[in-house]
């Protein structure tokens, strides 16, 4: 079962990669533009830190580290799960979703595997470079364990992005296209680029317990920052990721059921 899906995913990916390589210029343009976009954000932080030493007690490299984790986590979503954006307008509205329902495989799997988004690689590169730049300046020694935890945290961060988008994309089953909502919620992740401590308490709780974008960057990063005071909460990151995914998948199945009974 699992091996069958792994094999299938590999085959889907191979096809997607072939298409990508066919349009090499576009691949480069996409990657480059996303890198530039990410770079603009980092450059902004750099400019600000040219004039200040610390933001609410956080140093430049700490902010950079948070930023890097957010970018890397988001790139997982961007590369592998980008199709979530298109559920309403490319699948449900033109009736293309029916195609997925007459195949003997999980429709969510089929839907996700249908596309690989090349542009996300730009985000991944930048994210890794930024993390690499910030790492030596955090005042901890990096051993195997730390690396391992970092990787787990980043994957968890990616899956929180996925779960949140999946949850709100699922609304499309009831309202044809929930893209405006998905987009608005996604914009909330802008908050996650900076330490949550700079925000009002209400915002902080909202981003921790309701729409858990806090766990996509700030908390996982805080785990590696001495004296941040969030080391314990940070350990919850994988738990939050699993939990969010379960809720989102449950909701997706509800949506699917509603879709097959209204048929629009």
């Amino acid at each position: 079962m699992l091996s069958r899906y792994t094999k299938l995913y590999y085959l889907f990916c191979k096809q997607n990669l072939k298409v990508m390589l066919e349009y090499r210029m576009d691949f480069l343009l996409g990657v480059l533009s996303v890198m530039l976009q990410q770079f603009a954000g980092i450059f902004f932080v750099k400019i600000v830190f040219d004039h200040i030493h610390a933001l609410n007690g956080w140093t430049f490299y700490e902010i950079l580290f948070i930023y890097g984790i957010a970018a890397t986590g988001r790139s997982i979503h961007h590369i592998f799960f980008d199709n979530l954006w298109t559920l309403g307008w490319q699948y449900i509205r033109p009736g293309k979703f029916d195609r997925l329902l007459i195949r003997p495989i999980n429709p969510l799997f089929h839907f996700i595997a249908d596309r690989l988004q090349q542009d996300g690689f730009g985000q991944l590169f930048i994210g890794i470079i930024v993390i690499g730049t910030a790492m030596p300046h955090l005042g901890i020694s990096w051993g195997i364990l730390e690396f391992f935890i970092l990787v787990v945290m980043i994957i968890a961060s990616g899956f929180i992005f996925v779960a949140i988008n999946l949850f709100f994309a699922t609304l499309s089953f009831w309202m044809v296209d929930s893209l405006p909502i998905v987009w608005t919620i996604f914009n909330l992740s802008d908050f996650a680029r900076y330490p949550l401590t700079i925000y009002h308490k209400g915002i902080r709780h909202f981003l921790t317990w309701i729409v858990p974008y806090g766990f996509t960057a700030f908390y996982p990063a805080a785990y590696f920052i001495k004296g941040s005071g969030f080391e314990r909460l940070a350990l919850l990151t994988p738990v939050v990721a699993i939990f969010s995914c379960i809720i989102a998948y449950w909701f997706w199945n509800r949506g699917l059921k509603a879709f097959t009974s209204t048929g629009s």
Partner: protein
Amino acid sequence: MIVVKNLEKHYKIAKRDPGLRGAIKSLFHRKFETKKAVKKINMHIKAGEMVGYIGANGAGKSTTIKMLTGILTPTSGEVKVNGIIPYENRQQNASHIGAVFGQRTQLFWDIPVRESYELLKHIYEIPQAQYEETLKEFVDVLHLEPLLGIPVRQLSLGQKMRCELAAAFLHRPKVVYLDEPTIGLDVAVKVRIRAFIKQMNARYGTTVLLTTHDMQDIEEICQRIIIIDDGSVIYDGSIQDIKSQFGDKRVIHFELEDAADSFVLPETISEVTEVLPRSDEDPHLVSLSFSNKNISGAEVIHTMMNHYSVADLTIADAKIETIVEEIYGRGMKKEVQHEEIH
């Protein structure tokens, strides 16, 4: 193979008054209109049968097929395909059915046809040897060879449909649903497609349920037809039966010199003939339907010539087309019923 009992599907359509006020009102108090797309239909299709499922646009054909494939859950009633309830065990059902939905592609848009088939091979877990054999056969019958290397988006409609059809049969499904597979195609492609479907049925005993507006498709492929009108099955039987049952039916199309707006049936034949609904396209056309048990065609023509100046006429004989035309004609006169629920 396919058993359908008292199957119903009601669509709920949200009604909204226009404008901002309507939008706000609908937030609090939604009005729904129920559309009964399929009403208590029954059918029993045996393995290996090829059945034509016909009816006017909006009669409920696609809705029925969606329920049979498991895409749509019925409002009430029962469906069993090969012993499986499709909408409850959708994935299990999916592995032994194939489907073609009109002009919507089942293939993968950006990748070459051959690669699409490769993916389907894995999705349906087709053994390699069987896959190669089947593909070779399909390539021969449907002349796919030159198309295999081309991405689907670059194919013409006819080419695409041939590829679609091959995809639907690739895993040797027990049942194949074809929802208007010949729509918009030229005659040569239609002939090829018909031959292919017949061959699949002969070789693998595939059960086929076919909807189409082309009666030639039906006459060549199907032994049996089911006619649905406004959600209800109004005929279910062999083509032979329908021909002998309605075999005495005749339709004559008269092309009048003058516009036929004020046309009234001549009194002497008004008891035994009937005027079919007029088409908007040709204002001069009048079509009369009658049974040749009651009146002969010659007499109808004679009477008409006496009362009107006839420019031209065509006699349609007891082809399936005529019969269906007649049945549709009656169906259309019925009023569509809506119910309003709050």
